[in-house]
């Protein structure tokens, strides 16, 4: 039964790829093709939910003499449900085609989804890498959809460089893993885990390779550049689903293929990098002016939180604390599902705002709530989850993550204990700053008064986009209220990878079976009762409301030529972020240059504020300089004389063969 379902899933993936090719030759039928693709993704999600893990099939293609194996296993199942679900919503929204960039992106969107699903379905190293790299290339094409913009071209170049780096790391890591094993299937690689220095090398390379793709500090710099320039459905999938596929690869290698006897310290790099990503990502999310860039930065934060969960789980598994490892890994995987859902929602909503208001800059948005109440309501639902407010989905996973971080000092060792306590504090800092970022995104971007006239003419997006937004909001609320049901999808993976389960019923999640925990539905009922109480008391003398000009401490009404008031008197994106940038800005290398005006001078006073991501001067600028020097050094090879070129062409194979002969002899 399950093998049949698996074959159907493989057909769904193939059909998605074929739909992409169709979109390339039928540019006028894009809406229809996307609708079909969305239906296929919905069917894929349903089949994945219905199928039981365990089946495996071998495809008659692949490396010479080797088949590609597909399987639905406990770890890939939740990721596959997320990819199919998020893609169904994003493709539904993509049926609303606007401009040439949507047409250009159309063939790649279903192919991108197919590649992600293929990478998740693959049960051998070759299939995994094939799907993963094809996914990178397809998403690169999506970033390049607006190739007339220099910004998009730069972002695509940076993205391609990072993807190449990630591929280089992952191919070597997988090769090191596959070395002792007779073939490339996960089942046999699992039987032959690496040890000692090899294992440490695999840990380092896998963290770098998958981390670069997921957006882990310090390799996160491409996310805030590449995600905003892609069309909204593409950026929704890149942030919501693709980063999760990278995290899947990380979990697959570290938890599964490296065996279950990993030492405690393996968790440390992930916890440190995760905490750094969470802090830097959320700080940038508070400071960014571009709505989609702010959302992309918050993806960096959330990837960091998930990495902390992975790290805690690895450390706890190394210390033989299976329940703690299950709690941490469960928190990470629940956050994968929660974040994948609400981030897709937020990017689609941001795309709707971008289309309606003609800008993504928070400093030019504002007042959209009056013209787009449905979009604003959905954005508030998504932001509540992003800010980890109870009883939303983000809170459920961050509750579990904090619980595991608070229990982690039991692993022992003063240095580790202090590290875990600091990680817990940084998780709380990230949650609080995420709330700040969310209030800024909603408060500046969607509430208040319009800042430019164009925003005042905004309209709700088309029906499919609204439907996708509402469906994702409902899904986010469902994950928030019934995390126990969602954890059932994750539980088999926990038992498979760390040998422990989660103490959760459908209404209750707890740290252990006999301890109290978090009951989102009960909290929801308490909140509803609390909200109903004043309504009941005040109902008897219900008074007519009256509208009046805003009070603002007696601020004069604006003149008639400013119908929305003076935009400068409204708190803006930069002013909202100013306290955070003044107090925590040193982390972001914030710079401020103020030019005060002399008394009586008609010249305006100026304050120019900017910031730099610390990863850029620390890592990217030196690496870029070295690359430039190397390429100019190798440039000389192009201008050799014929004689020298020919001798070089002879010398290189000769040296190569000699090296092989010497190595063989050894």
């Amino acid at each position, binding site marked *: 039964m399950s093998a049949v379902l698996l074959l159907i899933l493989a057909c769904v993936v193939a059909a998605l790829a074929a739909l992409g090719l169709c979109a390339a030759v039928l540019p006028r039928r894009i809406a229809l093709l996307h609708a079909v693709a969305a239906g296929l993704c919905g069917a894929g999600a349903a089949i994945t939910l219905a199928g039981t893990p365990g089946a495996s099939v071998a495809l008659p293609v692949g490396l010479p003499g080797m088949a590609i194996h597909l399987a639905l296993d406990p770890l890939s199942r939740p990721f596959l449900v997320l990819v199919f679900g998020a893609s169904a919503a994003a493709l539904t929204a993509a049926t609303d085609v606007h401009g040439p960039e949507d047409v250009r992106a159309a063939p790649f969107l279903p192919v991108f989804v197919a590649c992600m699903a293929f990478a998740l379905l693959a049960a051998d190293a070759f299939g995994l890498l094939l799907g993963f790299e094809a996914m990178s290339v397809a998403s690169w094409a999506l970033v390049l959809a607006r190739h007339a913009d220099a910004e998009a071209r730069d972002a695509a170049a940076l993205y391609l460089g990072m993807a190449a780096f990630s591929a280089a790391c992952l191919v070597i890591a997988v090769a090191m893993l596959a070395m002792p094993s007779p073939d490339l299937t996960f089942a046999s690689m699992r039987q032959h885990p690496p040890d000692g220095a090899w294992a440490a090398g695999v840990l380092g390379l896998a963290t770098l390779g998958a981390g670069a793709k997921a957006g882990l500090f310090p390799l996160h710099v491409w996310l805030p550049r590449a995600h905003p320039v892609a069309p909204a459905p593409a950026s929704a999938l890149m942030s919501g689903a693709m980063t999760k596929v990278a995290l899947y690869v990380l979990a697959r290698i570290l938890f599964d293929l490296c065996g279950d006897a990993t030492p405690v310290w393996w968790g440390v790099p992930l916890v440190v990098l995760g905490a750094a990503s969470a802090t830097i990502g959320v700080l940038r999310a508070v400071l960014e002016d571009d709505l989609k860039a702010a959302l992309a930065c918050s993806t960096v934060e959330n990837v960091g939180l998930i990495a902390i969960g992975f790290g805690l789980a690895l450390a706890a598994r190394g210390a033989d604390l299976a329940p703690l490892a299950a709690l941490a890994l469960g928190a990470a995987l629940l956050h994968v599902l929660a974040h994948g859902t609400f981030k897709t929602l937020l990017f689609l909503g941001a795309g709707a705002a971008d289309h309606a208001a003609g800008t993504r800059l928070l400093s030019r948005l504002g*007042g959209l*709530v009056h013209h787009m109440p449905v979009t*604003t309501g959905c954005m*508030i639902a998504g932001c509540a989850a992003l800010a980890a*407010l*109870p009883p939303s989905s983000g*809170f459920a996973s961050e*509750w579990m993550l*904090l619980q595991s971080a*608070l229990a982690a000092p*039991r692993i022992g060792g*003063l240095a580790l204990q202090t590290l875990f*306590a600091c990680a*817990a*504090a*940084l*998780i709380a*800092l990230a949650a*609080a*700053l995420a*709330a*700040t970022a969310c*209030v*800024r995104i*909603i*408060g*500046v971007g969607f*509430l*208040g008064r319009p800042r430019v006239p164009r925003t005042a003419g905004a309209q709700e997006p088309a029906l499919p986009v609204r439907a996708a937004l509402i469906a994702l909001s409902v899904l986010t609320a469902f994950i928030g209220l019934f995390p126990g049901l969602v954890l059932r999808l994750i539980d088999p993976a926990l038992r498979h990878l760390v040998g422990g389960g989660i103490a959760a019923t459908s209404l209750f999640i707890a*740290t*252990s079976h006999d*301890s*109290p*925990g*978090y*009951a989102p539905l009960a*909290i929801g009922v*308490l*909140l509803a009762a609390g*909200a109903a*109480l*004043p309504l009941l008391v005040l109902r008897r003398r219900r*008074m*007519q409301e*009256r*509208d*009046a*000009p*805003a*009070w*603002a401490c007696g*601020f004069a009404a604006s003149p008639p030529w400013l119908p929305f008031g003076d935009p400068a*008197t*409204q*708190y803006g994106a930069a*002013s*909202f*972020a100013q*306290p955070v940038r003044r*107090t925590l800005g040193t982390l972001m290398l914030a710079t401020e240059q103020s030019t005060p005006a002399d008394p009586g001078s008609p010249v305006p006073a100026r304050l120019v504020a900017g910031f730099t991501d610390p990863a850029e001067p620390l890592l990217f600028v030196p690496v870029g300089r070295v690359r430039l020097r190397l390429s100019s050094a190798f440039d000389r090879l192009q201008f050799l004389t014929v004689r020298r070129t020919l001798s070089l062409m002879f010398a290189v194979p000769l040296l190569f063969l000699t090296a092989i002969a010497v190595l063989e002899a050894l």
Partner: protein
Amino acid sequence: MSTALGFVAFVLHTALMLAAAPVAAGLVRWLKGRLLGRAGPPPWQPWLEIVRLSRKQPVFAENASFVFRWAPGVVFAATLAAAALVPSFALHMTTAPIADLIVLAGLLSLGRAALALAAMDVGTAFGGIGASREMTFAAYAEPALVLVLTIFTFALLASTTNLDALAAQLHDFAFGLRVSLGLALLSLLGVALADSGRLPVDNPASHLELAMVHEAMVLEYSGPPLALLELSACLRLLLWMTLIGTLFAPFGLGPADAGPAGWLAGLLGWAFRVVVLSAALALLESTLAKMRVFRVPEFLGVAVLLALLAVVFLFVSQGFA
């Protein structure tokens, strides 16, 4: 029987929290007045103000959206739900299994975010100032809170952040007197002052708009919504007093199924703790001036560092034990 008593205790507790919150805030105001040599308004004055406001006609700014109209309800619901979770006079109430400290922090942050959004909704400068400052302060308060939590969960080996379970263990004096506990108390007091908007972080009696934080956010409200927000602010203060009292001086707290006779000791203990903390707050507020806004992160940063120090002390001492 015990479930019924637990429910009665829960209802009574919630009603008492609601009824006592404005009185506690009024008590601080009255004590401050006495300390400054004035007669001071009677302690029940905030109640009179809330009732007076709730009788007035609500006036909304022309630009206000549904966010502005619904926010007071959300703020009140979140604060009341949080207050319902903190045990005041009896342990093991009906809400005990869900009375989690992280959930409590989450509910407070829900109220904070809803109010900040409402403040941004009208599009005036003061609302933005208040919202931005309030959200920034929270970024410092929450790490301190979580570090304090680390101390409790680790020291008690409780493997839970459930407030009821923690209070029960603390009541049995399972913790002993520790340096870490003292540092944690200091840190938590700093967080409480910031979160409930008291001096030296925010002046609840301020009339200077540019220095306001909480008052700037509610500037556009009037009538019943304002009454609801005032009540929520009072409730937040009482919640922090009750929480600190329950964690650090849980004497008199008995189980809910001890019945009304058993609750009396708890009620007296709770009243005593609230009066002592109100007096301390009044003394503090009449001796301190409000800080500059950009000094507040330093103040809260000290709270974070104290908590971190307490955590490290604890790990070191446990390592030697």
